[in-house]
């Protein structure tokens, strides 16, 4: 008994398992509506046959068609006088009718001679019309009639029951003859155009993606970011100063750009904004005049750098505006070369739009180094209590700014209410939270600031990576309209996040020895990256870029289904219009492009690694 009961239980357990598996599959088949009856229905099978036959006959080539028409007169209904029969021309096809008059709905036999063997003949009834232009052709037989090997045919057709006339009407035989050499079909031409669009869509998206993914990958590499730490007080000071710097950078660049735009006559008329740059110049002159010791020298160098940057912004803005105007003109006047004008326009637009963003970005980081230069030597000298108070105040400020910004962002999404009121409480809560943190934590404690950046970036990348480009493109198509540009944006965004992760994993895999060695020489972080990290990651970066370009080509062929342009858009249209022969051409093109790029990129990757 003792022995048999566990085995009995085991059998019971197995039966339960089998039952459970059956239940799972039964439910699964029910949910997925698997139905083996439907595929057997004759109507569905016929539809399937149509599709498959259409796909098997890609619409690749077309011929010019010569339409040969042969008429025979007929009178409906009979009136007695036979219609005049035109004389048959020698060597030309003719048709004759079993009777030259008939009652509506009567059957008559059409006989043709002089046709080519095996030709398809359409038979029409052409009612009386005052001019040839007004003639209409009404099909009498549902299918075409095929001529015999001697070029004759004979077919019984049923006349229409209406269309009565005293005048002579016509029975017409029509043969469509192919003339000339085969030509690429319309579908093939369209496909060619769209496949080019597709390949470039993938190319541009990959380029944009790579340009942004490379810097991001460094910020998302654990081994690099682990080294980035900051003392608590300095970190809090950075948190305070960075948003301020970013906002100031944005404001200043917008002002300067307006000055630049005025220089070339774009934008609002010159006024107070031009005057706005004057104090800056005055400041520079004043500083240049007083330069004796190193402190003033440093200040002077800073001011000089700022002025150069300001002038650069003004000039860039002016150039951008000029480029826009020129580009617009060229686009309209260059004709076949108008894409150069378009390029100039896009490039200039990118400058004009990018300048404020760049200003904000630079501003975000530019206040940090001078602040560190002051805080670094100052902090160790401060008495402990002062240090604590400083950390406390900075932490409170940082908390207020940080939480205020988060609240402002959420407010944009959810529209809680008036911005100035919405951010008050979060700012207070943030200030209290970080101030409390400052009380607990040692102000000299090293904070792993790099890991914050690492986790934030990784989270963002993992989130966006899980959204397929085909889904993203829907949002972009709403924003910029259906077409390849939306596809570029969706694929580009996905490329950034996907490559950012792949790249950063490559950075994490590099050998640490060279980094150690270069750091030991007294190189700063940037130099360490340039001399110890980059040489190690170039080959894998190239390999992953090609791999991604490969993926992007594949994705770009279907991104059109979501409104992203390219061959996919054409394919989805053709499928929806039941034009399977044309769809077949699209699919063949996709297969060729994907397979050949697959092969190519594999070859190149083999070479470089």
């Amino acid at each position, binding site marked *: 008994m003792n022995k048999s009961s566990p085995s009995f239980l085991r059998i019971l357990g197995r039966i339960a398992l089998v039952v459970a598996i059956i239940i799972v599959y039964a439910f699964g088949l029910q949910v997925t509506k698997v139905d083996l009856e439907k595929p057997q229905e004759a109507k569905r099978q016929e539809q399937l046959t149509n599709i498959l036959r259409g796909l098997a006959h890609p619409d690749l080539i077309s011929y010019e068609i010569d339409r040969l028409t042969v008429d025979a007169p007929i009178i409906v209904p009979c009136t007695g006088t036979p219609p005049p029969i035109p004389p048959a021309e020698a060597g030309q096809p003719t048709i004759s009718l079993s009777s030259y008059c008939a009652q509506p709905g009567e059957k008559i036999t059409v006989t043709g001679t002089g046709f080519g063997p095996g030709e398809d003949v359409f038979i029409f009834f052409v009612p009386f019309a005052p001019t040839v232009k007004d003639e209409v052709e009404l099909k009498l037989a549902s299918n075409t009639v095929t001529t015999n090997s001697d070029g004759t045919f004979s077919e019984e057709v049923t006349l229409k029951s209406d269309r009565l006339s005293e005048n002579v009407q016509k029975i017409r035989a029509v043969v469509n003859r192919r003339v000339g050499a085969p030509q690429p079909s319309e579908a093939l031409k369209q496909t060619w155009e769209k496949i080019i669009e597709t390949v470039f869509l993938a190319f541009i998206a990959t380029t944009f993606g790579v340009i942004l993914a490379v810097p991001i990958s460094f910020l998302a590499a654990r081994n690099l970011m682990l080294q980035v730490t900051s003392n608590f007080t300095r970190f809090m000071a950075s948190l305070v100063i960075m948003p301020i710097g970013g906002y100031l950078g944005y404001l200043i660049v917008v002002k300067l750009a307006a000055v630049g735009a005025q220089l070339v006559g774009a934008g609002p008329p010159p006024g107070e904004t031009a005057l706005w740059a004057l104090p800056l110049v005055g400041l520079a002159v004043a500083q240049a005049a007083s330069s004796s010791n190193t402190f003033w020298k440093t200040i002077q160098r800073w001011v000089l750098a700022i002025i150069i940057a300001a002038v650069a912004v003004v000039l860039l803005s002016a150039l951008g505006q000029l480029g826009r105007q020129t580009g617009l003109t060229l686009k309209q006047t260059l004709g076949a070369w108008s894409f150069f004008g378009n390029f100039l326009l896009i490039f200039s637009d990118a400058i004009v739009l990018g300048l404020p963003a760049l200003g904000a970005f630079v501003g975000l980081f530019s206040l940090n180094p001078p602040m560190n230069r002051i805080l670094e030597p100052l902090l160790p000298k401060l008495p402990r209590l002062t240090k604590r108070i400083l950390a406390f105040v900075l932490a409170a400020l940082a908390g207020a700014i940080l939480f205020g910004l988060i609240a402002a962002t959420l407010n944009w999404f959810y529209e809680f209410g008036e911005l100035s009121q919405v951010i008050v409480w979060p700012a207070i809560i943030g200030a209290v939270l970080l101030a409390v943190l400052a009380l607990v934590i040692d102000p000299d404690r090293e904070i792993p600031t790099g890991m914050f950046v690492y986790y934030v970036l990784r989270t963002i990348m993992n989130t966006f990576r899980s959204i397929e480009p085909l889904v993203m493109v829907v949002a972009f198509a709403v924003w910029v309209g259906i077409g390849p540009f939306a596809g570029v944006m969706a694929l580009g965004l996905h490329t950034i996040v996907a490559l950012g992760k792949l790249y950063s994993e490559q950075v994490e895999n590099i050998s640490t020895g060279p980094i150690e060695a270069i750091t030991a020489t007294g*190189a700063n972080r940037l130099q360490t990256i340039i*001399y110890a990290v980059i040489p190690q990651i170039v080959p894998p970066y190239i390999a992953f870029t090609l791999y991604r370009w490969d993926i992007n080509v594949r994705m770009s062929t279907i991104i059109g289904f979501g409104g992203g342009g390219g061959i996919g858009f054409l394919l989805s249209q053709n499928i929806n219009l039941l034009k399977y022969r044309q769809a077949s051409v699209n699919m063949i093109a996709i297969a060729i492009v994907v397979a050949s790029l697959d092969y190519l990129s594999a070859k190149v990757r083999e070479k470089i690694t």
Partner: protein
Amino acid sequence: MLEIKHLTKIYDNTVLALDDVSFTVPQGQFLAVVGLSGSGKSTLLRCINRLIEPTSGQVILDGIDVTAAQPDELRRIRRRIGMIFQHFNLVLRSPVITNVLAGRLGYTNPMWSLINRFSKEDIAMALKQLDRVGIKDKAYVRADELSGGQQQRVGIARALMQEPSIMLADEPVASLDPVLAHSIMQYLEQLRDEGITVICSLHFLDLVQRYADRVVALKDGNLVFDGSPQEIDDERFKEIYGEEAQRIG
């Protein structure tokens, strides 16, 4: 003069790698650091230029507190401390000359580094250093095409580019065969003769006795011996390396 005062390193709050180590190295001395693997030799060397951040204690180089230096000052201090490594730590995909020039990065404006530019003087100096270690003809060869001994010479040339007053050598010959080991050690000896302090961790006592002016021995992070190489007799040896150890070489 390099002063090490009460240097302690605890990894992850648990592993005690250095335990209150203090000693002073006068300028121009060849100091060998010996001890078993894991005794804290590498940690000690890396705490001197703060590749590893010491938990407590001080490193004072010519009166400047290295351990208290802020990032910018630390980089200026590191320029004066050359370092060579057991695994050479070259950037293998870069040419030899670039590896050597990297030793100059502490003196180079980072903006120039962005476009990989060094001054004419630096390039001339790099060729001179390569000449000195006898591989000038390999200057434009990729570093991974060099043998181990040649790679370590590139490492020395790179460190010399810093015009260091101290040279840290972390097991510089552990990956090389004995013949090559002596040639590398002789370069270090030359540096000592030029007045550069050499602090070199070593495994082989014969090398220690042949090249070092002085030996410090570490055991489980503690300084267990500080004296001249000749003082290490069998009893001392057992103290440093444990009872089961056999002297080889």
